[in-house]
């Protein structure tokens, strides 16, 4: 080896040592491979209580095991987008899924697989305190569930649909007249049931809420979800009339309307808000990693991931609510009974 080559290799070695000293290797970062090793207990719980949902060969989300008899909760709006779904639990593939109940308010669907003696999920009854570790699904293979980790990151609360669902046409606010007017009628494209809607029509009411400005319109849609039907009170000249419309996700009506924060958040959930109660945590999630369980350090299930809201905010339905919903469904007599 000549001297120049040796010097070059030495320089490379020194440079590499220096850069390693200033930078933490990926494996040792919060969600790195080595750090995850310490989360063995919750990882086993995640493996035990997660179902993976596939459409064809592509996994599109997770499901949370609720009951040993084969009941799983999944995210309704993601499930509905697929023509066929099969569920993998541990290494067993379940191709027949019974759709037991849909709960649009929570964006949940209860599925039942024909399995016997599935594992028993341990539920947490403790209050989830801000700052406590939580663990959920990360990348997955058919056999093995990887995990991602974070902490409970904000107050448990309802999250409304503010700005998430919109009327299926554009509108303008006239501040002087304290009124809102139809700007552009998009009825054919966007399913306005009543087509008698023209540019310049005044929007008087959405449901029972009197509309004077943007704020009152937002207020009227706060608890609504995409697909809800609303009666609008309209006025054209002296004539007042009513029309029926279906609310739409903002992205569908205004495809380029995402905020700067949305742009830096990657693949977030399409329905990401409008839940009666959520736990918020800091585990970075995508639209394909929701639906599975959220566990604490003891491996107890504290909730089910329901929304990848943004780069820094993820939501889960608290365990207590999940069980309440599940028990209510089982109590209801079946339609054919």
């Amino acid at each position, binding site marked *: 080896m000549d001297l120049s080559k040796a010097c070059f290799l030495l320089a490379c070695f020194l440079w590499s040592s220096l850069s390693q*000293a*200033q*930078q*933490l290797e990926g*494996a*040792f*970062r*919060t*969600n*790195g491979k*080595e*750090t995850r*090793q*310490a*989360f063995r*207990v919750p990882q086993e719980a995640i493996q035990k209580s997660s179902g993976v949902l596939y459409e064809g060969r592509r996994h599109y989300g997770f499901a949370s095991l609720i009951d040993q008899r084969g009941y799983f909760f999944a995210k309704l709006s993601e499930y509905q987008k697929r023509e066929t779904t099969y569920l993998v639990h541990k290494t067993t593939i379940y191709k027949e899924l019974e759709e037991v109940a849909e709960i649009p308010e929570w964006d949940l669907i209860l599925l039942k697989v024909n399995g016997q003696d599935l594992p028993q999920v341990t539920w947490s009854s403790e209050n989830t*305190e*801000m*700052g*406590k*570790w939580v663990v959920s699904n990360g990348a997955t293979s058919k056999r093995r569930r990887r995990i991602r980790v*974070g*902490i*409970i*990151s*904000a*107050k448990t*609360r*309802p*999250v409304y649909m503010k700005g998430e669902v919109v009327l299926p046409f554009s509108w303008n606010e006239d501040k002087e007249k304290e009124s809102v007017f139809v700007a552009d009628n998009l009825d054919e494209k966007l399913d306005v049931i009543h087509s008698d809607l023209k540019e310049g029509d005044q929007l008087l009411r959405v449901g029972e809420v009197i509309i004077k400005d943007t704020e009152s319109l937002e207020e009227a849609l706060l608890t609504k979800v995409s697909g809800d039907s609303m009666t609008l009170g309209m006025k054209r000249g002296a004539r007042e009339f009513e029309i029926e419309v279906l609310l739409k996700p903002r992205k569908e009506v205004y495809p380029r309307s995402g*905020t*700067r*924060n949305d742009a*830096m*958040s*990657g693949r977030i959930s399409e329905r990401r808000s409008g839940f009666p109660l959520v736990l*918020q945590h*800091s585990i*970075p999630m995508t639209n394909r990693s929701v639906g599975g369980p959220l566990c604490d*350090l003891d491996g107890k299930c504290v909730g089910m991931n329901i929304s990848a809201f*943004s*780069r*820094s*905010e993820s939501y889960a339905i608290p365990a207590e609510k999940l069980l309440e919903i599940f028990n209510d469904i089982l109590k209801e007599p079946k339609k054919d009974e």
Partner: protein
Amino acid sequence: MRKKLEDKRKKENTLCEGIPVIIQFLVRGFPLLNLGCPHSFLTVALLISCSVWQVKAEPDSDRRLYVNELKAPKSSKDLLTIQALILSSIQNSKLATVNIELEAGEGSGVIISPEGLVMTAAHVTTGVGEEFKVRFEDGSEHQAVSLGLDSQTDAALAQLKGGGPYPYVTVAASDDLKVGHWVYALGYSGGFDKERGIVARVGRIVREAEVTIQSDCAVIGGDSGGPLFNLKGQLVGIHSRVSSSKEQNMHVPIHVYKENWERLLDSEFIGEGPFAKKPQPGTAFLGVRVKSASGKGLQVLETWEGSVAEKNKILVNDIIISVGDTEVNDQKQLSSYLAKKAEKEFDEVKVERQGETIIIKIRYGSK
């Protein structure tokens, strides 16, 4: 060898913290008493007070910081230690973390003194002397004004108006942070939301550069200017910017603030960007129409609606004698003086009104 020393140190720490003060006195005190100290009563008192001091000086939280030295946590016990340290300080950290609302948008900041000195980011305050609203997590509102900023590193200070005392956090020593240390981030992600409150994230320091530290705490718009804490609950950085990767979140380290501390306190605009744009000379606007007065000065004929002149109650028929330290007797003098001034700059206008001389403090607007 090193391990032995560490083990010994751990045992010593345990001794200091776990055993009652009186037993510590017996263990530590007897050898000294045996030396035949003549002032035994004084020695006993001294020893008791030393033992008490030692208990305070080596709190449990310091001992638990061993987790920072681990390449990765090894067990649930290590994770619980990190969790316990976060839980022990997060409530106080939250109390001092504020939302900042300016016309341009929202950001975050953190109070570091009972008098209400706030550390935040330059791209949040955007300038010097900016007045804005600050909100605490409970929704209570206070007025604040921006002090100096460093537009090259994104460091900025602000001051809450009103006397306080305000909740505040301790700032860490500049050299107290290393790559691999565990940290947590607080902020108002996406803006103020009273029902949600402040948002927390946990992570590690993943990179250290000259004027930036990087963590894998995923921050987002609205968090800018918010605090990054070490496991002792001490402030180690201020959120600045992110890359598309959720693991690449940049913060301004404390030493950057400390290096320019006096200049920031003196409301200096440091540097030429990119995090804040320095107002350029020639952009100042007063908003008056004037003519030369019969004696000296300029007579105000009209003030523009919404202008600095109108807001500061410069009235029609006032005679402007001087602006800053320059006397003005014709329009050209006023124009050439204003050509050297920038919008948002502070100044004084001396006017005569019905025989009385008045000094009016102004801040220039823009054209």
